């Protein structure tokens, strides 16, 4: 076996070295494309969703998100919890938020005509600490039109673009039940109405100071005022937050969740890592896209294996006489087979190495710096070295088989028939 391997390797090296450069380059090019198809297509599909996870983490949740327990209006023990988080050595920043459901009337000047629905929608009004929100989510980057809020000012509001007909990506979709505010621009006045805990209905007018564009729904479908103003509207005496986003090390998040739960010691709140906070349907989409990517990659793999098969088959068929002669002079069939398998592996390996360099040296850095602008996320390329190595192993296995089978088919022909070309 060793002698066959050695002789096969000897033959393969020389055949590769002295075969047509153009053909070799073409086969390697196909292998590179196959590798990229294996890694990049599924990586981009998964990256669409992973990109939205990343945006959710960076633009809203932080690494840990604390929200009220189901059926509760606010996070219990909020003041002590804030203090705990502020003093935790691993916590970099926190962004506590107030929030309540409101009805917003968009047009305060014109009354609706007969049979015309008022320009009104229901949404969530969120009160934010501008400085802390900026530290955790970089909130000001979402202000696309107009200006951000300023500390201490009252009567101003920021509106997410996806609840405004003029700016929403869904405006022309005519989705039943999706209400959007019409004719609301920066500088216009809107009226928010809500019901206090005691049952009082309160209304307050705001001037639209800015419009927020983000691919994170928690930003683009909500309205924002300063926390001080919202606290006044809620008429609460103490800090009763509806959400706290915590910025910490991503890897430390599970530990911080555990520590925070221990600290809460009976007080109710939903404490989750950003990954846990992502809705399960998005996880399902991620899985589906992964399967879809793998299915597409499988087609590429079949094409590549057929390519290698044909190349090796033609190579072996045209050398049938030489193969017969080699067998005739005593070269073992397995040595000849190994020579073709080595050639196939060479093409697969070189293609994979170039593909690896392209993926991690060019494409991944490029897509990280220039994400693909999808309507619901900024698509990145999800590719890990481990994943790529697994795909290389698959590619090499497939090329190995694609090299072995045709060589076997030719080599098993009768030696004398091969020599005589019968």
């Amino acid at each position, binding site marked *: 076996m060793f*002698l*066959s391997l*050695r*002789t096969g390797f*000897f*033959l393969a090296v*020389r*055949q590769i*070295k*002295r*075969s047509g450069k153009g053909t070799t380059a073409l086969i390697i090019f196909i292998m590179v494309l196959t590798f990229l198809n294996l890694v990049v297509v599924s990586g981009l599909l998964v990256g669409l969703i992973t990109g939205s996870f990343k945006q959710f983490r960076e633009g809203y949740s932080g690494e840990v998100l604390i929200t009220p327990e189901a059926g509760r209006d606010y996070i219990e023990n909020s003041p002590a919890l804030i203090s705990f988080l502020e003093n935790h050595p691993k916590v970099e920043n926190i962004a506590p938020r107030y929030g309540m459901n409101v009805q917003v009337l968009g047009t305060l000047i014109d009354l609706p005509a007969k049979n015309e629905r008022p320009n009104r929608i229901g949404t969530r009004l969120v009160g934010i600490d501008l400085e802390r929100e900026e530290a955790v989510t970089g909130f000001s980057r979402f202000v696309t039109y107009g200006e951000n809020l300023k500390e201490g000012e009252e009567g101003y509001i920021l509106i997410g673009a996806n609840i405004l007909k003029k700016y929403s990506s869904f405006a022309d979709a005519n989705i039943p039940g999706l209400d959007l505010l019409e004719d609301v621009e920066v500088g216009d006045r809107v009226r928010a109405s809500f019901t206090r805990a005691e049952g009082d209905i309160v209304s307050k007018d705001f001037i639209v100071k800015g419009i927020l564009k983000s691919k994170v729904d928690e930003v683009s479908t909500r309205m924002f005022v300063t926390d001080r103003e919202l606290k006044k509207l809620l008429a609460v005496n103490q800090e009763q937050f509806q959400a706290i986003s915590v910025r910490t090390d991503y890897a430390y998040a599970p530990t911080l969740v555990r520590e925070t739960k221990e600290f809460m010691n009976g007080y109710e709140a939903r404490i989750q890592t950003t990954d846990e906070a992502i809705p399960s349907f998005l996880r399902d989409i991620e899985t589906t896209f992964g399967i879809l990517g793998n299915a597409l990659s499988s087609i590429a793999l079949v094409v590549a294996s057929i390519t290698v098969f044909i190349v090796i088959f033609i190579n072996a068929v045209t050398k049938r*006489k*030489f193969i017969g*002669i*080699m*067998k*005739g*002079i*005593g*070269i*073992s*069939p397995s*040595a000849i087979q190994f020579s073709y398998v080595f050639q196939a592996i060479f093409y697969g390996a070189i293609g994979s190495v170039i593909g690896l360099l392209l993926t991690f040296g060019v494409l991944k850095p490029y897509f990280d710096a220039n994400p693909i602008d999808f309507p619901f996320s900024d698509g990145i390329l999800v590719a890990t070295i481990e994943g790529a190595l697994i795909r290389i192993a698959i590619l090499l296995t497939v090329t190995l088989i694609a090299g072995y089978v045709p060589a076997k088919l030719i080599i098993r022909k009768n*030696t*004398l028939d091969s*020599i005589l070309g019968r």
Partner: protein
Amino acid sequence: MKTSQIIIQAEKIVRTFHDGTREQSVLKGIDLTVERGEFLAIVGRSGAGKSTFLYQLGLLDTPTSGRLVLDGKETSHLNETEKSQFRLFELGYVFQDYALLPELTALENVAVPLIMQGHAIKDAYKKSAVALGRVGLGQRLDHIPAKLSGGEQQRVSIARAVAHDPKIIFADEPTANLDSETSEAVMDVFLDLHREGQTIVMVTHEDEYASLADRVITLSDGTVKSSTHKKS
């Protein structure tokens, strides 16, 4: 004749080919003995069965019936792997159309069987260079077949056949594709090898070259028509 001097002993070699329902006997029970160091030429008209007989003797084909002993070894019981090993270590072949691997240099072509035998590559190259030197190609070691003339390619083929010191060399029409001048040069190589004691069995259709052998057997219709020893 002492048994130990006999290197090829063929008894009643029959080779029949089947073409659908038709059966064609190409060899019809040939008997032959070849002495160690003998240079035997097999001649005959086209279709006489010369090459077919050579393939039986060289273990490239299996007789339909008959007995073949090579260098004292009964070959009829050998399986394909054993035959392949026997060919690799004990036999050498020279084919009509040189049969060199196009991507390998002259040196590498000669070295391949040696590497398969287990020689270190460096050692195989050294032996191959010596073999190529013997056939006058010491200066053409690194040339690929396409850069060599027909005669040079045939000499590379001979070097490949002799590099591992085989017991017998089988040559199938080695001069068929060569002009007369080159053919003579190739025959000189065979004669040199023969003088060194090499057993050679050569098929040829050229009487001029056959006459250089110790013995000439003429095949006709699958049987030995005549056997002529060279006059000393």
